């Protein structure tokens, strides 16, 4: 009995003492130069990017023949969990792949500012904003990720519409959808919102047609006016589209990747807000519908005064850990991974629209030829400006909006509060 009391006292004191809080382990500082660089990503295992990795490795080997580069492909689903755990315990990689936007901005504490190393590439590559925080660059963009609105040209034809001349305004868009539904029985949008990603695509894809240019720029610059009627319009339109039956049924239980895209691929929906790179993009759709049948339209204008621009950001990019032993070497690898030769291989191999604006795509599919010229005037996507906490909340609220368990006003109020904190 006495022993037991003693033990509980020991345990309790231990808890109390350690409970006062102590520092998380911090990274150790440089030692001898290492001859091996470890890269983490979720891409290098995919067949389409093999030639890209090889090109980048070859480029790096010409500059540093004595350094070995090890690519570790992690499963994307757990990538940030694994990365977080590895960094926390000081066993993180030297160079790592990031999604642009919130995912990298939340983690800049452990990243090396790259401005001085990538100065030469700044003109050649696009999409830096998604990898910068407060004017400092933390990763170099590899692909561009954006949200073109793809449409099925053959469905437009079937409904007696001109597939080469997609709708310009929201009213035209809705009436075209009605015609297609009548002629082919297809829904207007293919929407997958099981993970809450659907709203992100919707906001960024249609946002340019809803917000005025000034509101748009302010939003990106961090001055987000959640009380603006146009911001509210994004969410009321999201609800209205669903209430009016323009979406496929059961959007809240349809996975965006890839059930929603499958609906578009099989002609069950006429339009989908897709991606530019990775998956759910022109190349995937072209394989099912035929490259000539995939059209790209700009956001139909909802608010007068809004101008449709291509919403895009840096998609994925490589950053360097602060803890790396030889920052210059690691930054050099990042430069090799974003060299024109490597990125050309990425474009031809995986169909990604890369950050390198000097690559010639005029021989590509019609959809690519339609997207790439818009890059010059494009703007960052609306949802990328939000923190991952706010995006998570927005995902849940968007599901509630569809099921009717929250009002648009309440949703916008909660989002405003979350956006203010983060």
């Amino acid at each position, binding site marked *: 009995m006495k022993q037991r009391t003693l033990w509980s006292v020991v345990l309790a004191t*231990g*808890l109390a003492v*350690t*409970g*006062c*809080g*102590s*520092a*998380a382990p*911090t990274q150790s500082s440089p030692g001898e130069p290492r001859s091996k660089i470890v890269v983490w990503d979720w891409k290098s295992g995919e067949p389409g990017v093999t030639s890209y990795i090889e090109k980048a490795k070859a480029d790096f080997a010409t500059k540093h023949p004595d350094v070995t580069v090890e690519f570790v492909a992690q499963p994307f689903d*757990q990538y*940030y*969990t*694994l990365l*977080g*755990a590895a960094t*926390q315990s000081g066993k993180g990689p030297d160079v790592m792949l990031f999604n642009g936007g919130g995912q990298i901005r*939340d*983690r800049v*504490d452990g990243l090396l500012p790259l401005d001085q190393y990538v100065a030469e590439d700044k003109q050649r590559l696009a999409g830096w904003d998604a990898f910068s925080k407060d004017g400092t660059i933390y990763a170099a963009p590899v692909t561009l990720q954006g949200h073109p609105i793809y449409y099925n040209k053959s469905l437009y034809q079937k409904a007696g519409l001109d597939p080469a001349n997609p709708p310009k305004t929201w009213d035209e868009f809705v009436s075209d959808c009605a015609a297609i539904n009548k002629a082919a029985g297809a829904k207007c949008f293919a929407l997958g919102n*099981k*993970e*809450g990603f659907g709203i992100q695509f919707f906001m960024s894809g249609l946002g340019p047609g809803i917000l005025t240019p000034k509101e748009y720029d302010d939003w990106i610059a961090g001055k987000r006016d959640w009380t603006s009627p146009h911001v509210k319009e994004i969410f009321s339109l999201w609800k209205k589209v669903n209430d009016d039956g323009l979406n496929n*049924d*059961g*959007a*809240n*239980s*349809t996975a965006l990747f890839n*059930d929603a895209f499958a609906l578009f691929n099989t002609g069950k929906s006429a339009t989908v807000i897709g991606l530019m790179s990775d998956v759910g993009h022109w190349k995937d759709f072209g394989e099912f519908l035929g490259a000539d049948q995939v059209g790209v339209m700009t956001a139909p204008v909802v608010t007068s005064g809004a101008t449709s621009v291509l919403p895009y950001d840096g998609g994925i990019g490589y950053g360097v850990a602060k803890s790396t032993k030889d920052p210059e070497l690691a930054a050099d690898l990042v430069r090799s991974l974003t060299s024109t030769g490597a990125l050309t291989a990425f474009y031809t191999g995986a169909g990604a629209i890369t950050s390198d604006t000097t690559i010639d795509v005029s021989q590509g599919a019609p959809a690519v030829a339609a997207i790439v010229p818009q890059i010059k005037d494009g703007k960052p996507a609306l949802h990328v400006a939000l923190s*991952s*906490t706010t995006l*998570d909340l927005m*995902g*849940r609220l968007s*599901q*509630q909006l569809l*099921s009717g*368990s929250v009002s648009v006003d309440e949703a916008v109020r909660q989002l405003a509060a979350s956006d203010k904190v983060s």
Partner: protein
Amino acid sequence: MVRSAAAERTTGARFERPGRHGGTGGIPRGARAERLAPFVLVAPAVLIIVALRLWPLLLGVNFSFTGDGERNGTSVGFDNYAQLLDDPLFRTALRNVGLLVVLLPVAVAIPGLLATFIYLRVPGHRLFRGVYFFPAVLSPVIVGAIFNLMLGFDGPLNAALGAIGLGPIDWLGDPGVAMFTVIGVHVWATFGMALVVFLAGFSTLDAALLDAARMDGASLPRIIWHVIIPGLSRTIQFVFVTTMIGMLTSMFGLLYVMTSGGPEGSTYLPEFYVWIQQGRMNRPALASAASTVLFLIMLVVGILQVSVLRRAGRED
């Protein structure tokens, strides 16, 4: 061999006694070794538990009192816990734990009832015994993927419902339904194990009692209530405990594959919350706080279960 060991033990005890009563007098060497021996012998086990279990646990609890992001490493007191209580997602997760506890009797009754039918030799009972156990060998990921297809809004189940004139149900997209769907699938996937335990229990049941009840003309519900349940009380308690543990610790895979916590965050469980905060939100300290709360819940549940099992043992 045995005898000599026993003899040694006796000698040891004899040596010890004068030592204890000797007061300030020198303790014989053999006695000291004898006294230290048990500590030395348990030391490896204790060290392993302390180094690999208790110490990390303390580190985790300690970490939960520090901040995330800009406040990384600084002490923030109970901020993380306050934030947890404030977070509707975490409250949903706790409520879902409550729901699991409430649905526990159902999860135990299903294998119990099916095992009864098998025991009572319904036609085809041999086939059912194999069929029922089959899902228990499938991994949650496979089960989840199968049911994702089955329960899709345009999936076969809704098509079948439509054929008999019932409206489609959004099994995984309706926040009022999704948690029940996932629990249902979990029960389907795991009841085979409980069924086997029940069948083992039945083999200890006195068949004479059943025969006597039948002779007296008792109906099936009465046989179950008055003969089978009392006869199997210890088995039932055991299944209760193991099913509870299974529900609290192994739903993650299914949740991950089937709903990812959605729709509207309605299918969160604490472990899923921990994973999201650590991985997607990059908030390891908050995740540690949530883990600590989960640990405390499991501690309470575990102590209750141990006491139930102990009482069951005493009845024996």
